[in-house]
C-alpha cells in the first residue's frame, strides 16, 4: 500500500513523469546505434592493373596529382610493363614526406623529384637511383591580373606577392625570391604572403587578394581568367625522374613514353632523355 502522501494528484503526475522519463531513457538506450567504419583506402595512391604476366607492383612517387592517373594508366597499357609487373601504383604525397628510409629501402621504383632535394635527403642516393630523364628549359613567369608586369624594382614596390611555404619548390618559392633579389628588391620590406598549398595560393590570386604570383604556362589554362605575364626564368629544370638502378632495362622507354603522353600538352619544357636512342619509334 502506498504511503498517503504519494496518493495526491501532484505525486501521481510526478510519478507519471518519472515513468515517462524512465521509458524515454530506455528507448534512447535501446536505439543508440554505432557505426563500423571500415579501414579506408589511401586516396593519394592510384592503382591500375597491367593485365600482364608480370609479378608485383611498380611504385611511383610524383609531386602532383594532376598527371598521376594518366601516367599510371599509360604505364598499365604499356606491354613492356605488363611483362614485368602486375600492377602500377602511383602516389602523389607531398615531397616533404619522402623519407630517407624510403629511399634506402627502395620503396619506390620511380621518384619524380629534383636532384638537390634527393641529395639533401640521402647524399649517397645514387647508389640506389639514377636519373632516367629530365625536363629542363622550363619557363617560369610572373603573372598579374592588372596590367603588364615589369622587371624593375619600382614595379615591385608595395606589390603583394603570393608564395608557397614549401621551401623546396622552385616555381613557387625559390625562383620568385631569386628574381626579386636579382632586381635589388629588399625582400624584408616586400609584402609577401605565404600559402600552404598551390590551390589556396591561386584561389587568393583569383579573388584579387594578391598582385603577383609565379607559375608555368599551365596557370593561364588552369585559372581561365585574363592574365598578363613576363618571363622570370627560362631554363629551369622542372623535374627529374629517378629510377631504381635494379630495374629491368626494358621498361625505360615505356616510362618515358608514359610521362611524355601525359604531360606534353601541359608542360612546355624540353625533355632530356639520354636513353631515347634505344627506343623504337
Amino acid at each position, binding site marked *: 500500500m502506498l504511503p*498517503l502522501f504519494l*496518493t*495526491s494528484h501532484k505525486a*501521481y503526475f510526478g510519478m507519471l513523469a518519472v515513468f*515517462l522519463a524512465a521509458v*524515454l531513457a530506455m*528507448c534512447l538506450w535501446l536505439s543508440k546505434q554505432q557505426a563500423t567504419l571500415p579501414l579506408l583506402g589511401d586516396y*593519394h595512391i592510384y592503382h591500375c592493373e597491367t593485365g600482364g604476366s608480370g609479378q608485383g607492383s611498380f611504385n611511383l612517387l610524383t609531386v602532383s596529382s594532376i598527371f598521376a592517373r594518366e601516367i599510371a594508366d599509360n604505364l598499365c597499357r604499356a606491354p613492356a610493363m605488363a611483362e614485368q609487373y602486375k600492377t602500377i601504383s602511383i602516389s602523389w604525397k607531398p615531397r616533404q614526406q619522402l623519407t630517407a628510409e624510403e629511399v634506402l629501402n627502395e620503396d619506390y621504383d620511380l621518384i619524380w623529384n629534383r636532384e638537390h632535394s634527393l641529395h639533401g635527403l640521402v647524399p649517397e642516393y645514387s647508389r640506389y637511383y639514377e636519373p632516367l630523364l629530365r625536363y629542363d628549359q622550363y619557363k617560369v613567369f610572373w603573372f598579374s591580373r592588372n596590367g603588364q608586369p615589369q622587371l624593375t624594382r619600382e614595379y615591385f614596390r608595395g606589390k603583394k606577392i603570393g608564395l608557397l611555404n614549401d621551401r623546396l619548390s622552385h616555381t613557387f618559392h625559390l625562383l620568385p625570391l631569386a628574381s626579386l633579389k636579382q632586381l635589388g628588391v629588399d625582400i624584408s620590406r616586400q609584402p609577401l604572403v605565404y600559402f600552404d598549398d*598551390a590551390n589556396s595560393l591561386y584561389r587568393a590570386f583569383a579573388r584579387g587578394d594578391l598582385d603577383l604570383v609565379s607559375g608555368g604556362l599551365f596557370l593561364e589554362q588552369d585559372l*581561365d581568367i585574363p592574365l598578363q605575364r613576363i618571363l622570370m626564368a627560362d631554363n629551369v629544370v622542372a623535374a627529374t625522374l629517378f629510377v631504381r638502378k635494379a630495374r629491368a632495362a626494358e621498361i625505360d622507354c615505356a616510362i618515358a613514353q608514359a610521362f611524355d603522353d601525359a604531360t606534353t600538352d601541359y608542360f612546355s619544357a624540353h625533355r632530356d632523355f639520354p636513353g631515347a636512342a634505344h627506343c623504337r619509334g
Partner: protein
Amino acid sequence: MARCKRWLPLAWCVLTALLSGSAYWYAHASFADDLARQFQQQLPQRLALALQNRLANNGPHSWVIGQLERDLAALPATGRLPLLRHCRARVEQLIGEPGVSPSSGGDQIAVGWHIGDGERQDRTLFSLKCDTNWPVLLASQGVLALLLVGCVWLWPAPLSSARRLQIRTLSGAGIAPQLARRLSARLEQFNPLQRDLFARLRDQLGLSMESLLNWLAKPELATLDPQQILWLDLALHKGIEGPPDLDRALAVALAPAYLQFECEQLQVIAHGIPITLSKTPFFYFLWYARRRLAGDGWYLNPPTSRPDRDGAEPLITLMEELGGHNKSINDLREHGLRAKTLDQNRNKIRDELVSALGEVLVEPYLFESRRDMKSGRYSYRLALSADQIQIH
C-alpha cells in the same frame, strides 16, 4: 478508473508513436555522430594527402569522390536493436570552405581537415542515408509503450484531497491505515446524504465500521427524502442507551404515515415510533380515533352550560374495558363530556406526542379543528384519514 481504462489503448498508440519518433531520431543521430567521430579520425589525413597540391579543375577530385563513395557504400550499423540497415554515405561537396557549407547535423556529416600546418581549414561534406528497420523499431517501441501503460494502470489512482483528509481523520480515530483506505473507498461511492450519516454515526459506541457501512450502502437509504431523514434521526436517537438499532430506524424512516393504537399497552405507534401515553389521554385519543373510523370524525365541543351525557357513554365503556382510572370514569358519569376536559386531554395528547416526535413531525398526528358558525364553538377530529388509523 473505468474512464481511465478506456483511454489506455489510445494512450498506448500515442506513446508508441512518440517513442518510435524518438527512437527513429536517436538511431539516425547517434549513428551519424559515431560515424562523424570515426570520419574525423580517419579522413582528414587521407583527404589532405589526396587533395593537397592542385587546382580544382585539374585535380583528382572526381576520382577521390568515386573512391570515397566506394569505401562508404556499405556502413554496418550495430546497436542493442537492429534499427538501421544499408547505411551509406555520399560526398556532397569534396572541398568546401567552413562557414560556406553547413556544419554536421541531420543526415549530413562535415569533416574538417587542413593541409600541413596551415591555418586554412577545408571541409568535406557527406550525406548519410540509412534504411530504417521499421518492424523492429515499431515492435520494440510498442512493447516499451505497453510497459509504461502497464505501470500507469497498476499504479493506484490518485485520491482527492477530501479523500486523503478523510483517511487521515479515520486513521486519527484509531482505525488501521489499511482499513481506513478501504472504508474511504466505500465512502467514495456514497452520496452526500450517506456520507453525512456516516459522519454523524461513526462515533456511536458499539457500532462496527463494517456494519455501519453495509447499512449505509443500502439503496433505500440513499434515496430518503428530507422528511424521512427526520424520522430516521428520530428513530436513531430514540434508543439513547446502547447502540442504535439501524435496521429498525430505517424501517421507521420508510414507514407510511399511520397511527396504530395498541390498547393492551396503552401505546400509540406513530410512523413506527411507539409512544406510551398516560391512561386518560390515551382513552380520549382512542375515542377520537374510533369516531374517525366510524364516520367523518368531527366532534363539536359541547357548550359549557350543557355537557354531553350521551356522548360520554362510549368513552366510559372504553375506559372500563381497558382499566381506566375510576376517578375519570366517575367524573364522566357524573358530569358527561365537557369541553374543558376534552380540551385538557387533547392538550395532554399534544404535549406527549410533541415530546416524543418533535414539533415538526408531530403535526399530521394531531387534531384538526373547525369553527361552528352558529354556536361559535369548535369541532375537532384526528387529522389523519380513516385508512391511516389502526386499532388493535
